[in-house]
């Protein structure tokens, strides 16, 4: 079979045999296996980021009646690799009077935080690096790091446009954090757990049991609020090109800029992965009869579909204004998510 769990069990068996023959204790085996898992996730995410950038360009191009990258490789699939190599060669410019340590650490924080989320994402059957019992709480905590990195970048750049972008981002992300968290709580009440692994188990391989149906309002709020958290159109105010040129990352060049850029795309995939796990049954197929397709393919397909929806928003809508944005969060999304939470609580109590 093509399931990943078989591969993991094989690696575990080989490694434990090797370690016991060398006379090393269990703790070294654990360290080795966790390092291996971490490396595998990093490699996977790096490839995913490259793919997503290419895919976004293709999706945008086809929405706009054009072809997009076509020259490098088949339908331009090597384009992002070429761009990444170009960015690696660029000079790393730090503007005069910048706050140098903060300027350096901002992209690192952005990049690292989006990798850390994936420790608790179940990629497939048995493919979960760490099944924390507070999985959702962990994700919500880690994704908030993004705003810190943006505020750091905006502050350290010694640029008024960057500062405006950073300030906008702070108010935006803090406002949308509240409905985002509440929108997930309905599903948490239904599943009775915070663990990502148990979420998938609770929903099962039956499409009518997935939480998107009873929690459709929660799903819609989650998708809207997370689009705002991602700083993507229609909520891309921190980097609004026509107003703030590039916003918080205006003074970044070379690989530091690329780190912000890759982090943005990885965060988009994170949103897709979390929505898949909590609302769309995770790696489970919609019908038990379809379980011959490997679970990780179901996970990828569902996550990429959510990512496609977010891209669709971007290439259709204009940008909202900053006061409308905050008004929408506090006046529309927050009451709706409370309504959703209370209705779910009553329903869970009755049934």
């Amino acid at each position: 079979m093509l399931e990943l769990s078989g591969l993991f069990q094989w690696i575990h068996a080989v490694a434990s045999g090797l370690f016991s023959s060398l006379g090393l204790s269990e703790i070294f085996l654990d360290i080795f296996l966790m390092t291996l898992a971490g490396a595998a996730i990093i490699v996977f995410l790096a490839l995913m980021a490259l793919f997503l950038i290419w895919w976004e360009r293709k999706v945008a191009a086809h929405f706009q009646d054009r072809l997009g990258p076509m020259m490098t490789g088949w339908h331009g699939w090597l384009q992002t690799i070429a761009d990444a190599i170009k960015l690696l060669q660029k000079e790393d410019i730090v503007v005069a009077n910048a706050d140098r340590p903060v300027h350096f650490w901002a992209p690192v924080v952005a990049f690292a935080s989006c990798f850390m989320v994936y420790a608790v994402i179940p990629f497939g059957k048995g493919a979960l690096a760490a099944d924390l019992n507070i999985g959702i709480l962990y994700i919500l905590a880690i994704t908030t790091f993004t705003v810190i990195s943006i505020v750091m970048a905006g502050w350290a750049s010694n640029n008024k446009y960057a500062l405006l972008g950073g300030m906008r981002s702070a108010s935006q992300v803090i406002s949308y954090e509240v409905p985002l968290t509440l929108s997930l709580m309905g599903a948490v009440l239904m599943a009775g757990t915070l663990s990502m692994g148990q979420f998938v188990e609770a929903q099962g391989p039956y499409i009518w049991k997935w939480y998107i149906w009873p929690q459709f309002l929660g799903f819609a709020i989650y998708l809207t609020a997370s689009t705002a958290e991602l700083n993507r159109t229609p909520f891309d105010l921190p980097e609004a090109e026509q107003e703030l040129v590039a916003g918080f990352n205006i003074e970044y060049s070379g690989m530091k800029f690329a780190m912000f850029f890759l982090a943005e795309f990885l965060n988009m995939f994170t949103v897709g992965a979390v929505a898949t796990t909590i609302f769309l049954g995770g790696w489970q197929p919609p019908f038990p009869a379809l379980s011959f397709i490997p679970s990780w393919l179901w996970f990828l397909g569902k996550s990429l579909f959510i990512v496609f929806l977010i891209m669709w928003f971007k290439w259709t809508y204009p940008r909202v204004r900053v006061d409308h944005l905050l008004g929408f969060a506090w006046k529309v999304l927050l009451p709706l998510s409370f309504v959703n939470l209370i209705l779910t609580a009553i329903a869970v109590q009755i049934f």
Partner: protein
Amino acid sequence: MSEMIDNVPLTEEEFLLNMGPQHPSTHGVLRLVLKMRGEFIEDVIPHIGYLHRSIEKIAENRTYAQFMPYTDRIDYCASMPCNLAWALTVEKLAGIEAPPRAQYLRVIMTELNRIASHLIYLGVMSLDLGAFTPFLYAFREREMILDLFEMTCGQRLTYNYMRIGGVARDIPPDFASKCREFTRIFRKRVDDYEAILTNNPIFLTRTKNIGVLPIKVGLEYGASGPTIRGSGHNWDIRKAEPYSSYDKFNFSVPLGKNGDVWDRYIVRVQEMRESCNIVDQALDGLPEGEIKAKVPGLFKPPAGEVVMRIEAPRGEMGYYVVADGTTKPYRVKIRTASFGNLQVLRYLSRGYKIADLVAIFGSLDVVLPEVDR
């Protein structure tokens, strides 16, 4: 430049933001110094002149016919009306009248150019509001118009098509059928643009009641064209002082109500539909005959002064020429619509946010080379 900024008095909470000359939404090289309080704009100080090419002075050293290609460069988004205004000015000075076929061809080209220019407005306006896709849709249709121009005069941007007394070339045989195909397709495409923008809730919140221009203020600043018609002022030179057979066509002048960004948008969208109608009517009634009146090779108009104005896509465009009886004009003054329209920016954008400034500036449809000349 620093002395311009140093003289602005600031309180503790205010700061100056330099917007441009290189900025994605200043549509060229306009420089705005914004006095900001957080996201709010307290004052806008525009600095123009980065694109000054002294076209008016160049005119004094060229013959009347030689100046025609320079008029292309006044407004590169709508060169045909600039051409036409110059031709009409010199014809008025010398008492020449273009033959009927030339007049109809001028109307066709000018109206097609009006559509192309409004398409740029539509695309850039939606881009300013953060919607990328309508921009490329608009340029797709503009491409069809440019193909028509290329068929006719071999140029896609600076046409140099009008001549004193007529036009440079007759249209090729398959122009009429291609042009009709364009207007047929284009009417449906305008519906598409409206579907994606006109009633989009985000677009409405970004444009309704933003940058309201009262008629009186607009007239005092010299605003014209769709900018003032968006406020409901019924002033279109094609109707008020018909030139080049415009009195023979049946078309209406769209008017707005409030004078906000949305009204200026909808006026331009409706104008594109009206221009389509004019082009169709002109193709239907295109007379046979000469395309150019007899003008002597050594063209010396009589001494005198003349003012001629037309309705360009951005508003009132005209020339004031002082002739001294030689082959070259003594003095040329160009009146361009963008210059007048840009003046209201400071009035309109005080008290709004920086995102609104971008929307207001986009809605004025300013082309910078026309401001600086």
